[in-house]
């Protein structure tokens, strides 16, 4: 069931980008107000928020899968992760190509002067190796454990990405704090599993002693399972 829904999920993940493209076309053609009075800013905020949303969706895969015992969900994780990077790429290219029009010197100054841009750039740099090593071949080459260790960078990205949003906001920090809360819950789940014990609402109820894996082996087994599922 979940396997067959994957093309649907893929299309849904693409929808925000298609909407943005459609609105951008509108701005330059027949609907000048399609992206509000400030289309550049609107596009930056829009893609930035979708990057964070996909990051949250990616990080929600493991908790949801384990809490509800839906093992097949694991095979969605890479897709969500790559969509996170996809929206991060659009976000960055909006800033580079549209907002600053490839004015590298000015952008260098911006990165140096403004900490929210610096931490945003940092987040992008940290996301890049994760996207590059998302293939099955990479898992094989790196070995499950090393691969899993590298991919724990996603937790760092969740925090730096949210701080980027928090620092970019002028005064009303309500929404950045909502995102921060979501990420704290998602990361808290992992800490809980690591230090307290597995959390299950339904599905496999493993014996306590056996099922107390470290985050590392948990991720690694999840990945092997995912690869197994995909075959």
């Amino acid at each position, binding site marked *: 069931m979940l396997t067959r829904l994957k093309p649907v999920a893929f299309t849904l993940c693409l929808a925000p980008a298609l909407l943005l493209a459609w609105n951008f076309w509108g701005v330059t053609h027949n609907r000048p107000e399609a992206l509000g*009075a400030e289309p550049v800013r609107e596009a930056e905020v829009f893609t930035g928020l979708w990057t964070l949303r996909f990051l949250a969706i990616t990080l929600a895969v493991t908790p949801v899968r384990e809490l509800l015992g839906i093992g097949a969900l694991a095979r969605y994780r890479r897709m969500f992760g790559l969509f996170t990077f996809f929206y991060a790429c659009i976000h960055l290219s909006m800033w580079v190509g549209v907002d600053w029009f490839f004015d590298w010197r000015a952008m260098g100054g911006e990165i140096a002067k403004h900490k929210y841009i610096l931490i945003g750039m940092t987040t992008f740099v940290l996301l890049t190796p994760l996207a590059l090593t998302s293939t099955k071949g990479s898992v094989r080459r790196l070995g499950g454990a090393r691969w899993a260790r590298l991919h724990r960078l996603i937790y760092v990205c969740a925090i730096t990405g949210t701080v980027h949003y928090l620092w970019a906001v002028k005064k009303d920090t*309500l929404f950045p704090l909502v995102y921060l809360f979501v990420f704290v819950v998602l990361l808290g789940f992992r800490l809980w599993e690591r230090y307290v014990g597995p959390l299950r609402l339904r599905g496999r109820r493993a014996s306590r002693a056996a099922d107390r894996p470290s985050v590392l082996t948990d991720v690694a087994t999840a990945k092997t399972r995912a690869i197994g599922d995909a075959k």
Partner: protein
Amino acid sequence: MWIRRPDDIKSSEITDEQLYVDRRRFLVAAGILGASGVGLLACNSDAHGSSDGDVATDAAQQPEDKLNTYEQITSYNNFYEFGTDKEDPKDNSAGFHPMPWTVRVEGLCKKPGDYHFDDLIKPHKIVDRTYRLRCVEAWSLVIPWQGIPLGEMIRRFEPEPSAKYVAFTTVFRPNEMPGQRRPVLQWPYIEGLRMDEAMNDLTLMATGLYGKPLPNQDGAPIRLIVPWKYGFKGIKSIVKIAFVDKQPETTWNIAAPGEYGFYANVNPEVDHPRWSQATERRIGEFRRRRTLMFNGYGEQVASMYSGMDLRKNY
């Protein structure tokens, strides 16, 4: 499913017509004001002592200033009293009632009192002033305002010589202004000017734009316009004007003293921690343009700050 094509082509045609009328009005206004050295067109004239016909170096490198549309001016607003998103003021201000309106004048002056809006406006001639508005967030608009030069109004109240500053207060109506129900800023919004800034010929108490009464989202029924300062100095929906002898507190300075100063003069050389101020994006344009010192009004205002360290007094 076939989704009906929105009929925005029609409405844009209407806007164009409106614009045409307004553009003619603008040309008249700018021409008159330009001749007196106050208007937008005269603002770029440089220090070369060039005659009126010459184009200043600055202006030559700068794309031309074009009026923003009524739609842009009324749908992209920072008016936290109605919410913190740019579209919030337009969406949330329909329930605001700008009339009847009373402005309290108090402090160090000979004619304090509660002035009904009409009594405040009537004795004066409404003037047209087209100004650039530069937001501290590095975007800008060109807006054709109508209003009364603040200096003229102040003279009526006969301030005492001891009055060194003018302090302004926005109305506090959380039942009509949903943004005031959350403590995003300290309410009510307060702002202030030094007396010479308030008396400067550019400083305007705006009551309308594009020939219409101020829309709620733009600060109805009366707001301050100080075109050489960042937009947040332009306090909206004013209910109190007080003459004081000490520098008054200002809302954004209270919120973040390291980011927003009392003076808040547009200055491309002094960066805000969040936004570089060297460039700005004019609403409706894709490319950034260079920000001008004092928003291009240096000729009329720079002398007020001679000898001041503008890096310290940001």
